[in-house]
């Protein structure tokens, strides 16, 4: 079936890409950019793991080491994870899923990519000039008083990238409210759209606080005024409050879209309706709301009042409830399903497992007495890598594999994709599980040398990182291969539900040849019906 030119065929010049306002092409622009940043950030991680393979500091100097983990953190958080699923998959899918032709403000969408690239370039310049040694959290007073690295330049870059986040979030919110196809009620929206919607609210409301905080740090460095610096009459704890007011919700910016991805893939490959659809939607909103109120759990040992710590601890436990609802509902969706283990499903199940471990260890850190022991150790490092890498990156790969046929019109070699999924899952656990034990044993984070008794576990972790790196490189090859040699995918190769599968692969520029008909029930899968891919 033909529905006019596909969006990929609509102009082949560089100009037709760089000045496009098509949400699908902008998604591709984002995808290319974040892939580049992912490999730069990964390179820094590789050197870190190499250094930690031996107890002695023998590969890089301590100063270089500080700059490496800072570069790794800044790039991975702001240039990869935050834009990954929202700006790539969300951009591509939200209009398709709600039956719209584009986002509400296509030009703002394109502008957001340019702002993102400008911010990314400034950050790269700061790294090229010698980097930053503060860690990605830029804690004061170190970042304002003592650090002699390129803090102001890097902060300017993160500040600029923030505006791209706000533009993207604004666009999604207005789009979901205004551009749903006739008949697409709120409770017929795919959970991916709910997740992107909640994420967008966080992007719009939390990012400006980060922007103003970073602005204050730069102002303090440049003009020596006292906001955070006690020497000038400021207060360093104020920085932590403001920074984590953004950066804790930022965790949910990274993980909510991942939850949305899992909620699309698991029903498709279990051939079951999602269990507890409304609860899933409410849980997303619940996480987004409570996520704004837990920032103080990063400051249990910073000297905030015990009463405040107890409230933040309680709220942190509360946020686990909607998260657990989601895990239970994914599991219940599998129950009595007709499960197929295609590559996207392997990635999605990997996400659920790793997210569960990451979430449960989060409860350790949310409890006040345990956190005194575990704070600033490798336990924390491992915990947030389980959420951000095990959770978000795994889900990003799941999304990439599930919607790859839709985006490119081509199928990849499923066997290679399964091998990569298993490699990433195993490599990830080999890399990060030992770090939980190291942290519980008391190994502090951010040190480039350590006592010899920690070596076995560190070596384990570094070896695992090699497997993980191999797993991350594989998709680069087989997905790249599929672009030229993969067989044509057809409109709906997985026999999935959702409006995006009712149009051609790749979709035409205006997404739908005619107004899409919204089905009565969302996730209308039947485990007993045969799977019929549409060629």
């Amino acid at each position, binding site marked *: 079936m033909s529905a006019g030119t596909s969006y990929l065929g609509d102009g082949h010049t560089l100009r037709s890409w760089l000045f*496009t*306002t*098509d949400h699908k092409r902008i998604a591709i622009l984002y995808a290319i950019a974040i892939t580049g940043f992912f490999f730069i950030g990964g390179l820094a991680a590789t050197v870190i793991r190499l250094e930690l393979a031996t107890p002695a500091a023998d590969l890089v100097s301590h100063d270089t080491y500080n700059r490496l983990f800072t570069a790794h953190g800044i790039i991975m958080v702001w240039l990869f994870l935050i834009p990954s699923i929202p700006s790539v998959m969300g951009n591509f899918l939200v209009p398709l899923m709600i039956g719209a*032709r*584009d986002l*509400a*403000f*296509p*030009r703002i969408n394109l502008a957001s990519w340019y702002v993102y690239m400008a911010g990314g370039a400034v950050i790269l310049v700061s790294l090229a000039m010698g980097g930053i040694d503060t860690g990605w959290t830029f804690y004061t007073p170190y970042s304002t008083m003592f650090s002699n690295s390129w803090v102001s330049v890097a902060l300017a870059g993160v500040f600029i990238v923030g505006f791209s986040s*706000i533009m993207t*979030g*604004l666009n999604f*919110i*207005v789009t979901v*409210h*205004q551009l749903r196809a006739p008949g697409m009620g709120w409770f017929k929206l795919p959970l991916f759209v709910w997740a992107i919607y909640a994420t967008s609210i966080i992007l*719009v*409301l*939390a*990012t*400006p*606080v980060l*922007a*103003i*905080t970073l602005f*204050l740090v730069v*102002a303090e460095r440049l*003009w*020596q*005024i*006292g*906001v955070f610096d006690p020497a*000038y*009459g*400021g*207060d360093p704890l*104020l920085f932590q*409050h*403001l920074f984590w*007011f953004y950066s804790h919700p930022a965790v949910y910016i990274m993980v909510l879209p991942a939850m949305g991805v899992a909620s699309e893939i698991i029903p498709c490959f279990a051939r079951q309706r999602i269990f507890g659809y409304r609860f899933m939607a409410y849980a997303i909103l619940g996480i987004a709301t409570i996520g704004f109120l837990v920032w103080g759990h990063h400051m249990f040992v910073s000297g905030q009042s015990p009463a405040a710590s107890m409230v933040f601890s309680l709220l942190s436990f509360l946020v686990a409830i909607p998260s657990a609802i989601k895990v239970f509902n994914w599991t219940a969706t599998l129950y009595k399903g007709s499960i197929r283990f295609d590559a996207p499903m392997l990635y999605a199940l990997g996400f659920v497992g790793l997210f569960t471990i990451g979430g449960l260890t989060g409860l350790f850190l949310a409890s006040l007495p345990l956190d005194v022991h575990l704070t600033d150790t490798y336990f924390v490092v491992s915990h947030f890598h389980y959420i951000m890498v095990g959770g978000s990156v795994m889900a990003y790969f799941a999304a990439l594999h599930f919607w790859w046929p839709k985006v490119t019109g081509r199928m990849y070699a499923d066997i290679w994709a399964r091998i990569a999924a298993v490699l990433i899952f195993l490599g990830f656990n080999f890399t990060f599980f030992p770090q939980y034990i190291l942290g519980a044993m008391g190994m502090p984070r951010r040190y480039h040398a350590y006592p010899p008794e920690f070596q076995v576990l560190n070596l384990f972790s570094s070896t695992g990182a090699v497997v993980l790196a191999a797993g991350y490189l594989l998709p680069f090859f087989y997905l790249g291969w599929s672009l030229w040699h993969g067989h044509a995918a057809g409109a709906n190769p997985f026999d999935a539900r959702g409006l995006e599968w009712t149009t051609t692969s790749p979709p035409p*520029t*205006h997404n739908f040849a005619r107004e899409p008909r919204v089905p009565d029930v969302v996730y209308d899968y039947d485990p007993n019906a045969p799977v019929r891919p549409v060629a």
Partner: protein
Amino acid sequence: MSAAAISGEGARAHEKLTAQFGMWVFLASEVLFFGGLIAAYTYGRSHWPEGFAAAGHETHVVLGTVNTALLLTSSAFVAMAVAWGEERGKQRRIAWLLAAACALGVAFMAIKGVEYRKEWLEHLVPGPHFRMAGVRGAELFFVLYFLITGLHAVHLTIGIAVLAVFAWGAHRAKPWAEPRRIDAAGLYWHFVDVVWIILYPLIYLGGRAQ
């Protein structure tokens, strides 16, 4: 390419709502932008109430009050312009109202400039010559004062520019100066006004309680 196709279709009311809603979401983001600074102010004031009161006492309440009146009046003009935007053939009146709001905005900026100059001469600008260096919290008050009012001034400058463009566009009856856009610009102007209404008591009145 597709942008033109998209903005050219759909019901006008729907489009108006989309522009308005986009502005509301943007303003929600702006609230948090100023909110970070106001949170910093609250934090400082709860830690050093005496320092903040002493510093607040040094601000120029007359100038601040006059400026508040100017902004409130300007917002009234903008509201009238938006209300008339619904009727046809009121282009001239809309243009004049927007221009008047612009002029009040410029007057606000001029008075703010006079105020900054006075504070500079009175050594109230944080730095090595700061007059109240001995009072704990006073310097933070003035740091935040200059940052918040500075950020507000940046927003106001953008607002003046936007209103000036629409005043000119309405005067020439340009097709792009349509009600839904003037409406969205008006929302922005009111927001900048509301920020000032919150800043006014925090800056000028807090130190004058006793």
